[in-house]
């Protein structure tokens, strides 16, 4: 929300750059999906659900899954 051009703006105020929301949201939607999939493979794959059969992924990231705080088994 744009602040009204305040007369009381302190002269010492540093210009803080903003990045437009419209520019950021597509990146967030795209990368958010990629990140969630990556986190799913570390935190939950071959636990309660699985996209790949077997236990290879689960066993490989096993210690990380425990120590990062995910329910492992």
């Amino acid at each position, binding site marked *: 929300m744009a602040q009204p051009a305040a007369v009381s703006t302190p002269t010492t105020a540093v210009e*803080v750059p903003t990045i437009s929301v419209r520019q950021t949201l597509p990146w967030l939607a795209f990368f958010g999906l990629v990140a969630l999939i990556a*986190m799913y493979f*570390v935190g939950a794959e071959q*636990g*309660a659900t699985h996209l790949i059969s077997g236990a290879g992924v689960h066993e490989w990231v096993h*210690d*990380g899954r425990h*120590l990062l705080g995910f329910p492992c*088994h």
Partner: protein
Amino acid sequence: MLSARQLLVYGLIAGFVAGLLAFGVARTVGEPSVNAAIAVEEGAPSTTHSHTSSPAAPHDHGDEDELFSRGTQSTWGLLTATQVFGTALGGLAGLMSALAMGRMGRLRSEVTTAVTVAVGFVAAYAVPFAKYPPNPPAVGDPDTIAERTTTFFGFIALSVVVAVAAVYLATYLSRRHGGFVGVAAGSAAYGVVMLVAARLMPTYHEVPHDFPATTLYDFRFASFATQLTLWAGIAVVLGLLLVRATRTARTSVAPRELQPA
């Protein structure tokens, strides 16, 4: 000037670096408790933890038919987990910072980033930690893994959504009543909603009665330390990259006149 893509790249770099630091903590502080828990599991094959009862998760902690050795799991496996998780988290932190920058009062970009990451740590890890504390091997009933996974991720999702709403509330009130009132009201609103949610959502008590309390504590301490290292590392590296970028942006305007070549 800074772009969303640039913030994403900075976040990925910060996440990768912080992932290495988190690996160091997990390896040195965490692995002893994981190994101790596995020793308990192998010493007393309890009835509450028969891995064979869950066909979706054939799960071995050092049995004879193991896929990877404990040595591999505790080094390359652990490193893979911290790097994949850390880099993904760093990228998200970069993009969330892109949205927050310049929109939290007059806070500088690197301070806004630190606040964003701190809120993320509390909402996505620390508060869920308090409700659903992480468990070492040998703790947890395989029959409830599906339900526990759903409630765990549900609680995190709720916590993050409520935290984002609380940040909006805090910035809105800060403009009218000052930063202290804004932050206090936002924090209080988040706290009340999450306390109610924690009371309403199911709790699981699945630690075997003979499981050593010190091992359980050491493991949970190590898990907290690992995640704290990861998030703090992301905040620091991302902040340093932003400070450097804004400094270059500020100085890159003037020298052009000095060097007409």
